[in-house]
């Protein structure tokens, strides 16, 4: 399905037709946001990661602990081990902006009830009201940062679409199951870093480059994983600058912006080199190994057959993974720098983040969310593949979500998403007959893999010498499909070059 077909598909969905005809755009936008929030709030009723499991608990406790640390200790001690800041117990390992956010939430929590974030004594604290508060902080961050970013993207970038179609697309982006489940179920604040990154994407696509780089730096300083997008941003801005009248001036301006933003974010830590080095050391923990748990990337998949971690030294592994990552993202980056285009940028975001996810060092299964965000932005230009990717990326996190006790919301969020997509794209069973052979194969493969993996999870009891067989199965199958998607998305990005710039460049209003 291409963009033209999408236009007519959207137009024939009753939602868009009604909103269009009745001029209910504002009400529809509010309703869409309300429903997206409702799903999030309801998922929040389910348990969070590590609920009531001492001694370490989970990501929820990490976030709560950071509030406690940042509230009660001066910034100079945040990243340093001390008697009151045991770095082995969920030490702060995100960049300064996360720390400031934690401080703000901690201050508010302290206002409501000091017990929630009391130094040391509050470890593993889970009262009804403190949990409600923590959930509320995610919900509010989502509403204040990610929601506006999504609506802004649809409004500003998808100017070819009528407003009601933009709202329909915004609804699909907002309902992507992975992000909802991890942020509001498992418990994290990806909506902030991804929301900032999305705002940056909108800005640079609208040629507000300075603003875009500020926003991207903020995203980076909230969560270092936004580095996955850096190659795409870098190439896009570089390519645009090279095509402008004063390339050197523009690049210099961008450089100054980036340095200034970083300096501002790091201000409390710029006291000494050591201090900066300590923060960096915390943010990039080389010592943790090639990959954690069973993640759907290449290293984990290869390790099924070849025990990489046993054969190679750590330093060598770091180097190998760095080189492989570089090779994986190079084609897309070079292509974008040479021929910067709007759609090309979106594909490059997917390609660079997917390259990082598949090949870089120390990847978490949740990092697939970084790929899912730009993939969801492709809903407007390549809807079917974007949907398949969003579903697969969510499925790849199933073992984690299952461990958190989120299997029910996992299924419900997926079904919700599928219902909305089927309705908005006006897809019926008959439509499948018109698919190409490749499309049919793809659909069949997705269905078979999806159901096969889940059936195995519940009904296949692995042999004693392979206790994690089901986990590995998920990782390997997901990894294989991600590799296929990486090839496909790279191919699509290169395909764009064959088309004259004017047609694939999305117009502004």
């Amino acid at each position, binding site marked *: 399905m291409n963009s033209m077909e999408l236009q007519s598909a959207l137009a024939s*969905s009753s939602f868009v*037709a009604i909103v269009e005809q009745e001029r209910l755009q504002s009400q529809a936008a509010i*309703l869409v946001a309300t429903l997206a929030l409702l799903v999030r709030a309801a998922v929040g009723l389910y348990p969070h990661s590590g609920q009531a499991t001492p001694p370490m608990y989970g990501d929820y406790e990490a976030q709560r602990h950071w509030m406690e640390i940042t509230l009660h200790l001066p910034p100079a001690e945040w990243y340093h081990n001390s008697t009151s800041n045991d770095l082995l117990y969920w030490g702060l390992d995100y960049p300064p902006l996360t720390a400031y956010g934690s401080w703000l939430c901690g201050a508010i929590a302290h206002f409501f009830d000091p017990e929630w974030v009391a130094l040391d004594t509050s470890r593993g604290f889970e009262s009804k009201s403190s949990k409600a508060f923590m959930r509320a902080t995610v919900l509010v961050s989502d509403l204040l940062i990610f929601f506006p970013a999504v609506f802004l993207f649809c409004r500003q970038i998808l100017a070819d679409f009528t407003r009601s179609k933009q709202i329909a697309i915004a609804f699909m982006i907002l309902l992507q199951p992975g992000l909802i489940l991890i942020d509001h179920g498992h418990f994290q604040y990806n909506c902030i870093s991804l929301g900032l990154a999305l705002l940056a994407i909108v800005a640079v696509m609208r040629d507000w480059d300075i603003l875009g780089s500020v926003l991207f730096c903020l995203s980076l300083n909230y969560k270092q994983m936004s580095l996955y997008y850096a190659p795409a941003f870098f190439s896009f801005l570089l390519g645009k600058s090279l095509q402008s009248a004063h390339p050197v001036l523009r690049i210099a301006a961008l450089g100054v912006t980036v340095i200034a933003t970083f300096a501002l974010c790091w201000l409390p830590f710029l006291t000494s080199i050591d201090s900066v080095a300590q923060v960096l050391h915390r943010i990039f923990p080389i010592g943790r190994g090639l990959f954690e748990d069973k993640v759907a990337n290449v290293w984990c998949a290869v390790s099924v057959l070849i025990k990489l971690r046993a054969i190679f030294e750590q330093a060598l592994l770091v180097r190998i993974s760095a080189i492989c990552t570089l090779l994986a993202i190079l084609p897309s980056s070079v292509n974008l720098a040479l021929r910067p285009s709007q759609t090309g940028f979106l594909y490059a975001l997917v390609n660079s983040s997917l390259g990082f996810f598949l090949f870089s060092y120390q990847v978490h299964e949740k990092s697939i969310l970084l790929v899912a965000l730009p993939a969801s932005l492709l809903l407007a230009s390549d809807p079917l593949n974007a949907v398949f990717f969003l579903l697969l990326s969510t499925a790849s996190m199933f073992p984690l979500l299952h461990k958190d006790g989120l299997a029910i919301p996992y299924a419900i969020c997926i079904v919700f998403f599928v219902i909305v997509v089927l309705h908005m794209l006006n897809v019926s069973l008959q439509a499948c007959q018109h698919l190409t052979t490749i499309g049919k194969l793809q659909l069949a493969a997705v269905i078979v893999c999806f159901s096969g993996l889940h059936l195995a999870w519940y009904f296949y009891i692995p042999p004693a010498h392979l206790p994690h067989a089901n986990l590995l199965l998920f990782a390997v199958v997901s990894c294989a499909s991600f590799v296929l998607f990486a090839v496909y998305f790279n191919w699509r990005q290169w395909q764009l070059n064959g088309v004259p710039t004017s047609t694939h460049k999305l117009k502004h209003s």
Partner: protein
Amino acid sequence: MSSSSSRANSSAGAALTPSSLPSPSSPSFLPTPASSSSSSTSFSSTMTTTTTASNAAPLGDSASWAVLLVATLVKLLLLPAYRSTDFEVHRNWLAITHSLPLRQWYTEDTSQWTLDYPPFFAWFEWLMSQVAVLVDPAIVVVSNLEYASSATVTFQRLSVIVTDIVLFYGVQQYVNTFRGNKDLYKSFIVTIFIVLNAGLLLVDHIHFQYNGILNGVLLLSIAAIQKGHDLIGGLLFAVLLNLKHIYLYLAPAYFVFLLRHYCFAAASSGSGSDAASVQRSRFVIGNFLRLGAGVAAVFALSFGPFLLEGQLGQLLSRLFPFKRGLCHAYWAPNFWALYSALDKVLIYAGPRLGLWPMPEHVTASMTGGLVGDVSHVVLPTVPPVATMVLTLLFMLPILVVLWRRPTMPMFLRSVVVCAYASFLFGWHVHEKAIVMVVLPMSLIAVQHANDGKWFLLLSASGLYSLLPLIFEPREFFVKHLIVLSYVLLVYCALRVLFRGLALDRSSGSRAPFRLNRLEKAYLFGFAAVELYTEVLHPIFLPNWLPFLPLLLTSVYCSAGVHYTFVRFYNESLHHWRASNLSPTPSISTSNASKRHS
């Protein structure tokens, strides 16, 4: 793209409205009311829709099933939500009905939550307990108080979700009676209003009750009457009374309608649209006996076994505990909320104005956290009989009109008015009873733009008043978002419907669906109430008049419920005069004339 071209097309689209002609080639989930779009391709597809739409596809069904699916998903998401003591109440009833012989059902009192629903509901619990014992045998042990293993919770939650099928079936039966080519959209939004009803989500799927299946039986009864099967409708209502006796609220409307419509036959072929037809009709003793015998049989089946055990008095004392006070712990937004609020204001205002001294014994009750069951201090205390008289008095006018014009629309209106009157003036009314008004009202909401407006305002005020019912901080956002999205959905759906109807020459009603300034201000006022009760009061005045937030909520909601009651009642009374108000007169008159041929 261009708003100008879409405006140009909207007249073409208007030709299709009000409804919902499905495109036969592409079964989507929603029936399209009319599609007008700026792109030329979709415009041509609209044209094909127009030409081929007359062979109505079974699309309405797939759309309804999609609504059921979405509703079920939302309910499943609410599985781990807060449960009130009603959860334990129903678990206890599972245990009682499963483990004890019939004669002990209404005498057993190990738990304080004794069985106080009529016998058919007890049998319903008995039926469910047959499954419950397979899930977890410990559920059905009477002495196992407060038992809530995860299997128990899942089973009981699922039992509500599964029995909601009856509600869905009831709606389907009802909308099938008027679903023509034209009314597909109407039937679709009635389905949405009922199946996705926010009140049911809050009361059944968070708080925990079985109103879904009960209201499903009510809808089945209404649908049967709509189809002309008065006897079946009456019997179903008798069954409903034996499931939960609170439906006695609606009994006057049923009584008058069935007596007049079923037991009297029109002597002439006229549809009986004026008072003179009352004299011309004659009493049909056969129908009267049939209905009487049927209802008596239902009650005999229900109460008979207990009568034989000599427990009728015991049973009735369980069903009607008159020891309770005028208002529930938290005031339902009814007349007595205003009355009690006025009392509280007078307690303070009187001494200031020098009218009477500050009564000393009330200060304790004035500082209580919850709005307690206070006796009135300044105003006269209300005896139960006064509430009953007042309730019947308010039912009387519509019942008189119903007697003169026993048509289906009038019957529905009478049912709603009876529910309204009982809610507003009844003794010890619970705020949850508003669902009994909102649900039948959703059937009327699609008839006329003003009906829609009253339904919207009633939904907002009635459902908002349910929020304090779920008081734990965890559900704060969920409950608000459920009500907010429901009210938004109702607003959008009704606006679409009535704009379509207003543009359609062939439809009778062309009144616009528009809120006046006061009504808009009232709806936005909820934001102010919310701000005060949830933010300003707890933060800045934590120790000052702790009952004030709840009092404010119920008084503000009460204003909305009263307003819609007065406006809706007034219009309903004049409804039978102005025939153009009734868009579906054909159903009722044809039924009335067909009946005894």
